[in-house]
């Protein structure tokens, strides 16, 4: 009987699932994922995780805990760095240790480290280590990884060509509607906030219903964003920060965005800095409407709905009235 691998559907699942799904498929590993986030997982995670952690990390705890008794291993790679000279977030680096020390009865954690900060080939070494848990040779694991990387590159091509990543994940087709009045809204945020419709209270769907087409930082070519971010006085050492700021600079240059929504987690260290820097640049160099929405486990849906409505209304009125606001209403 082969070992079962549990995959928590949180954090970088949203970024790398096409890669890992293909990798484990080629190696014929029996996988089970924890399913989409729901109230039970959120409550479980909030209870088990330390209070001060950000919401995505708490939700991840919930996903991991829900895989107890369902798998022999649980896949929590230690993402120290996924790009040269950059980190992600300290919590990503310490995530397997947090789980190990907070949750009882977890299956054995596969916490292979991914550290691409200095050498890219660390990825292959890590792939070999992961494959070995299931009895695969280094050669087979490396082959599976290179094939999986090709599949991932195909996925990235689709996304950059304009397919919304959330639609691919949720298996939705033909969601885009680009009419004359469709607003183009840039939604900046971590993938685990933007593509988890439970966490963000279905914000993408709500924006679409209001006649907006949503696009995200992931839908740009990474190299382009990194080049745009070169103008920063000091090189940013967070992968998300570089991409988000690079995207901001790109938007300011091409001027084809009607509004920017920054979706931030309460307590996210990186967002605190990146959001502030992005906002400053947008407000200084353009008059693109910019709003920050902060989410945590207490966020009420009504509050988010009101803000989205007001924001979209503001943009439409501005377009209609060209900035003229009547003094008498």
């Amino acid at each position, binding site marked *: 009987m082969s070992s079962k691998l549990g995959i928590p559907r949180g954090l970088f699942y949203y970024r790398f699932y096409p890669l890992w799904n293909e990798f484990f498929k080629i190696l014929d590993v029996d996988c089970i994922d924890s399913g989409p986030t729901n109230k039970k997982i959120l409550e479980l995670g909030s209870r088990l995780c330390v209070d*001060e952690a950000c919401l995505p990390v708490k939700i991840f705890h919930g996903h991991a805990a829900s895989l107890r008794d369902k798998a022999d291993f649980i896949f929590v790679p230690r993402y120290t760095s996924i790009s040269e000279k950059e980190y992600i977030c*300290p919590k990503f680096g310490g995530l397997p240790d947090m789980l190990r020390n*907070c949750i009882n009865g977890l299956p054995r954690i596969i916490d292979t480290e991914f550290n691409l900060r200095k050498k890219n080939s660390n990825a292959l070494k890590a792939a070999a280590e992961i494959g070995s848990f299931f009895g695969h040779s280094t050669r087979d694991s490396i082959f599976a990884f290179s094939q999986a990387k090709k599949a991932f590159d195909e996925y990235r091509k689709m996304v950059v060509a304009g397919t919304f990543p959330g639609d691919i994940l949720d298996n939705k087709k033909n969601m885009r509607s680009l009419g004359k009045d469709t607003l183009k809204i840039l939604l900046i945020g971590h993938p685990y906030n933007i593509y988890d419709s439970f966490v963000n209270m279905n914000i993408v769907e709500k924006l679409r219903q209001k006649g907006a087409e949503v696009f995200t930082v992931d839908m740009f070519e990474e190299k382009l964003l990194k080049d745009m971010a070169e103008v920063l006085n000091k090189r940013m050492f967070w992968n998300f920060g570089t991409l988000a700021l690079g995207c901001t600079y790109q938007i300011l240059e091409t001027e084809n965005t009607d509004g920017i929504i920054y979706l*931030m987690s309460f307590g996210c260290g990186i967002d*605190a800095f990146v959001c502030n820097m992005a906002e400053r640049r947008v407000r200084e160099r353009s008059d693109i409407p910019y709003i920050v929405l902060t989410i945590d486990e207490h966020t009420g849906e009504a509050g988010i709905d009101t803000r989205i409505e007001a924001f979209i209304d503001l943009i439409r009125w501005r377009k209609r009235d060209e900035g003229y606001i009547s003094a008498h209403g």
Partner: protein
Amino acid sequence: MKVTFPHMGNTYICVKSLLDDLNVDYVIPPFNGRAALDLGKLCAPEFACLPLKITIGTLIKAYEMGADTILMTGGRGPCRFGYYCEMQREILNDAGYKMDAITLEMPKGGIREFIENTKRLVGKTSVWRILNAVRNAVVIAESVDKLEKLSYKTRPREMEKGATDLIYRSFKEKALSVKGSRAMKELISKTAEELNAIPLSVREPLKIGIVGEIFTTIDSDTGFHMDKILGDMGFEVDRQVTVSEWIIEHMLKKVIPAKRDLRYVDAAKPYLKTMIGGHAQETIGNAVLYAKAGYDGIIQTYPLTCMPEIVAQSILPMVEKDHGIPVLSLIIDEMTGEAGYMTRLEAFADLLVMRRKNCEMKKVAFQQATEV
């Protein structure tokens, strides 16, 4: 050019000596406190960590005193501290406090830009003079940390309450007016003699290890003077993370080939396998080492949203369980009420005293039972 720098504990003493020796014109802002925080939180992002808010407030005060250039250390992450220099420059300039910034790190432009920055700071000075000034500053940082450790030993044992504080407070004020590294070394030496001359009782106090984020643990003004309060309650405190340790282990030893003290890394390994940024590894590792050294309790303190310390906090309960040592985590932000903070400290102190009493009573009972 009038240089200034934010406060972090006693760093002003070694920085001041360095700038004195290199003849750089500078301004020392008032020490950190509520006033600096109230100023800084108006400009800084809401979820920025407390040290950024405090340093921005302090730099605003320095600007009002005539400073036009910020001297700051940098970093390469993942802790946010590495990006403070940029955030400070942008936020202050936006708010109307036009200041230039010199960051002490290898810049984007490499060694050439680094030399340009150094020239901007010190003008035409020989390399030898710069190296000598740096060497003296490091020696001073080490002796100031030793002095602080000495005060942690004398305060719980002093026969006359307040004797340590009288000498130590006077030292901190005199250090503001003393000029040059030689005079500073003399002042430190004299203060050490005064502290060593304090009459002490022979009682052995309970010991508390302080771990956590570097700024809140080192800067007593930010940490509600926890080290002094615990000392007055009769506890000897200790803190492994110090300014000189940071300069020597994390800055100098990366350039000079010297063996680093990595005991905390080995101690942390069963709980936290890798460096994740900030001082998380130090927090866990030192907590384990304190437990093994027979300390009575551990206090972890950090600013709200400090990412590495959040990871450490989630792991400390395991250390607590495995080593049987009580751990208290205190999180500080601009809403922290002093009363609530003090209540927790006092309750923790009482807990440690009762544990020690119970332990001693059990020892005596055991001895009596085995004698009979």
